């Protein structure tokens, strides 16, 4: 694979018009206005995240859960305590929950408790154990390569087969392929299998935990190859791939998401005036939380964070910087439309408005 081919078949543009558009002129365009009205209905979403278990049935190289202090928090398995927490969260304005670490499917009763109180949310799982249908959240199933790689990096045999058995035809399910430095070419065989089973897939970038120096960490070459793979597959599998050109740019850029957009999660944002800095919390399994550590991927190195969960909030929050010309605003709308289709049950992704890769505001491609 040649890096120089990395943006074919779609075009790329390094620079765009310097003219600053009025917002009213941007949304005067029918296509833009329609998409704007579609996505803005979800501006009410306010998330927090919750570790549901400190146990996992796999042990993956580079897992951020088993970094830092949070892994040592004892589990609170009391459904009443969780129901009370969810009611309190709702009362302070949380409308969306992300249930994660270490492996949430090991505590299905707690997932049900959360769903019964706050019905919008998602679960990050390895997909090894099926989550009951009564928990009608989006389910993100992590894929780290083909089965050989899964055996080596995650210690799991026939994992993709098992994941598909569990979630084939399930409208809650989105497979999340995490690109590492080592598995880029494997995405092609994985997506063939995903598509043959009519499943949906989106892309994540391995983002190193603090202090991680292992072989999964991306470098310039691997980010370029990953960008090419993302764009190839976006073109080849439009019915299966939930992604956009601007997603590819934002997540494979030489700058991390924090570098590009200034992360708005509390860990990197001291302001408590409004937005994520004010409302976001990341609860550990003992239902405690720590503002200084709170973000959607705690213990990830912010300078290397290109995580899909982080981007969904960090890129979206920068509406102001993207509402400057039609191309960039359409790119942002595609990004938000993509993230909503991955995170919100029943939200259907539309065709991307922009098939050209534009650089984030203030940066080159």
């Amino acid at each position: 694979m040649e890096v120089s081919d990395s943006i074919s078949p779609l075009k790329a543009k390094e620079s765009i018009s310097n003219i600053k558009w009025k917002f009213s002129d941007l949304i005067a365009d029918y296509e833009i206005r329609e998409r704007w009205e579609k996505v803005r209905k979800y501006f009410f979403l306010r998330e927090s995240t919750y570790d549901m278990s400190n146990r996992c049935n796999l042990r993956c190289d580079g897992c951020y859960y088993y970094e830092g202090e949070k892994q040592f928090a004892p589990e609170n398995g009391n459904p009443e305590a969780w129901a009370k927490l969810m009611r309190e969260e709702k009362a302070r304005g949380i409308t969306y929950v992300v249930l994660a670490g270490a492996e949430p499917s090991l505590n299905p009763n707690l997932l049900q408790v959360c769903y019964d109180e706050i019905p919008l949310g998602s679960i990050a799982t390895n997909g090894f154990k099926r989550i009951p249908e009564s928990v009608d959240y989006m389910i993100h199933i992590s894929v780290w390569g083909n089965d050989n790689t899964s055996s080596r990096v995650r210690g799991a045999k026939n994992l993709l087969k098992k994941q598909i058995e569990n979630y084939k035809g399930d409208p809650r399910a989105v497979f999340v392929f995490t690109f590492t430095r080592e598995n880029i070419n494997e995405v092609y065989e994985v997506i063939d299998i995903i598509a043959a089973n009519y499943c949906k897939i989106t892309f994540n970038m391995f983002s190193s935990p603090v202090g991680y120096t292992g072989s999964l960490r991306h470098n310039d070459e691997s980010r370029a190859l990953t960008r090419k793979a993302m764009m190839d597959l976006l073109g080849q599998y439009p019915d299966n791939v939930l992604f956009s050109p601007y997603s590819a740019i934002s997540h494979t850029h030489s700058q991390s998401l924090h570098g590009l957009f200034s992360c708005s999660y509390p860990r990197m944002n001291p302001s408590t005036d409004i937005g994520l800095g004010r409302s976001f919390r990341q609860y550990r399994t003992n239902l405690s939380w720590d503002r200084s550590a709170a973000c959607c991927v705690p213990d990830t190195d912010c300078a290397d964070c290109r995580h899909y969960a982080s981007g969904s909030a960090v890129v979206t929050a920068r509406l102001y910087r993207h509402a400057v010309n039609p191309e960039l605003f359409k790119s942002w709308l595609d990004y938000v439309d993509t993230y909503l289709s991955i995170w919100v049950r029943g939200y259907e992704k539309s065709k991307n408005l922009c098939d050209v890769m534009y650089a984030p505001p203030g940066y080159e491609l």
Partner: protein
Amino acid sequence: MSQSKTINAKDIILKIAEIIISELKLEDITPETFNPDMDLVDELGIDSMDLTTVALVLQDEYGITIDEDDYPKLKSIRLIAEYIQNELNNKN
């Protein structure tokens, strides 16, 4: 809308209220009944995306630039009105 002349503070307050009501699709409230000192975050529950949207519309309406870093200052309609008047004065 040209802003070369001084605008009455009450008119700005009513216009901001009208924009917030329209953009946030608020019901059971009119520009006249909207308390200009209501805390938009604490009392109305406005979030950053809503505030950004309102700021973008206000920029168009008054021909000013509202810096992203200034959003936390815009906590009530009265404070927004003062901000706009300052920007218009600086511009003129």
